[in-house]
């Protein structure tokens, strides 16, 4: 069972890595930070499937692989299905007594980007969660299709400039709201659902350990700052993520059994979303006088969401 000691960073750093370097993700990409934090949090045998996206195409460039675990390269939408199939097979073989080592702990994990989780693979994910397979699905949410040139996805927030929701004279970028996938997954009745962030490595590792220990389908949404499409300097990945969690654009919380909501990080000083927006090139146009009202609208929505989360935490519903 997940025995990695995560009490402090020094203890955490004694683990033996199972995600290798020389993958082809951009310098400063948060995807690999998240994958490392998660995989280092456990020493169980892992069976991993990855949806098409930056992570998949960059960590398995034929003839190379960066994974030291069982890992399957699969289509855009079906990591959840593939891993659910592997889990069903594992259970059946365990029952029939045909496993080589039936006592070894095996955990089933699926990774997907926001494009494959919020949009293309949503039906597959929903189905696997509804069937109640014992697996953990991790969404690396960088709010666009970064692998194919930064098109908008349903995870792209209001006002962001993307290659298919461009900002200019007529438009201020994406006009629609971001889909609240964490709430949707909690509404499936999944036993453990969380939104976590790589800058808070402890809550990230703990949340993943909790998801692995929980029997049944678990879902974790993680914030993955994208240096290429959010347009910031690669060295600032953690700084941008700090701004995201401290401005409450990405609140960190978990929902247990669809009802018990716990807020895992309360910023000491809540900063205005304007600071978070100003640090990224994709929001540059919002600072023109004619678009100022969008910033106010974003701030209002963030405040309302935070109020809602706090109330739900208190009410336990």
């Amino acid at each position, binding site marked *: 069972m997940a025995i990695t000691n995560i009490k402090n960073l020094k203890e*955490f750093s004694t683990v033996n890595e199972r995600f290798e370097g020389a993958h082809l993700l951009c*310098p400063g990409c948060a995807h690999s930070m998240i994958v490392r934090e998660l995989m280092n949090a456990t020493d169980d045998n892992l069976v991993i499937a990855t949806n098409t996206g930056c992570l998949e195409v960059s960590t398995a460039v034929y003839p190379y692989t960066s994974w030291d675990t069982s890992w399957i390269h699969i289509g855009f939408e079906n990591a959840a299905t593939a891993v659910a199939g592997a889990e069903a097979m594992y259970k059946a073989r365990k029952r029939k007594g045909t496993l080589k080592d039936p006592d*070894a702990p095996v955990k089933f994990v699926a990774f997907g980007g926001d494009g494959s989780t919020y949009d293309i693979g949503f039906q597959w994910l929903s189905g696997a969660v509804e069937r109640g397979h014992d697996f953990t699905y991790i969404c690396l949410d960088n709010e666009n299709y970064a692998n194919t040139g930064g098109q908008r996805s349903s995870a792209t927030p209001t006002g962001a400039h993307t290659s298919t929701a461009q900002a200019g004279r007529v438009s201020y970028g994406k006009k629609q709201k971001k889909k609240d996938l964490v709430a949707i997954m909690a509404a499936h009745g999944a036993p453990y659902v969380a939104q976590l962030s790589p800058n808070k490595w402890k809550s990230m590792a703990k949340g993943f350990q909790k998801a692995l220990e929980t029997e049944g389908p678990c879902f974790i949404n993680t914030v993955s700052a994208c240096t290429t499409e959010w347009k910031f300097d690669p060295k600032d990945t953690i700084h941008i993520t700090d701004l995201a969690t401290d401005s409450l654009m990405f609140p960190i919380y978990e929902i247990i059994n669809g009802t018990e909501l716990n807020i895992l990080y309360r910023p000491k000083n809540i900063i205005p979303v304007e600071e978070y927006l100003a640090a990224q090139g994709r929001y540059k146009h919002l600072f023109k006088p004619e678009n100022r009202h969008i910033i106010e609208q974003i701030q209002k929505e963030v405040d309302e969401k935070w109020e809602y989360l706090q109330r739900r935490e208190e009410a336990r519903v």
Partner: protein
Amino acid sequence: MSRGVLATEKRGVRELGAEEFVGWDEVQQGVVLPSFNSELKENVSHIRPEERDYSDFNSYTATVASWRVIKPVYNRDICIDCQNCWVWCPDTSIISRDKQMLGIDYDHCKGCGVCVEVCPTNPKSLLMFAEAEEIDEALAKWPEKKKKENK
């Protein structure tokens, strides 16, 4: 510092380049790439990277050093082993053993500079220098401790 950990024989022998890849028609369907040469009795979370039998398919045996134009240089004298750089390195390029930071894996580092940004010491124990700069020269240029600015 243990040199054996920082420079294994296996690592850094090949550059990822187009000439190494096979054409579309030659790629087998349903191909399996073994990460290790020998069959494992248990998963590798109990085996240190320098003791693993990596196969040629493992990206550990490849290098992305040519991506870099600037590189991080590590100053052991100032480091407090907080491991911030280790946890946030996106390229598994900070080598830490037994709670100690040993150095940078220049075969896998892409020079993003995240490690320098998250370093909490004063002056920083990691700084970015030009790729061509010699490590000794870089260490000789290390800045002095910065005094707190009066606000």
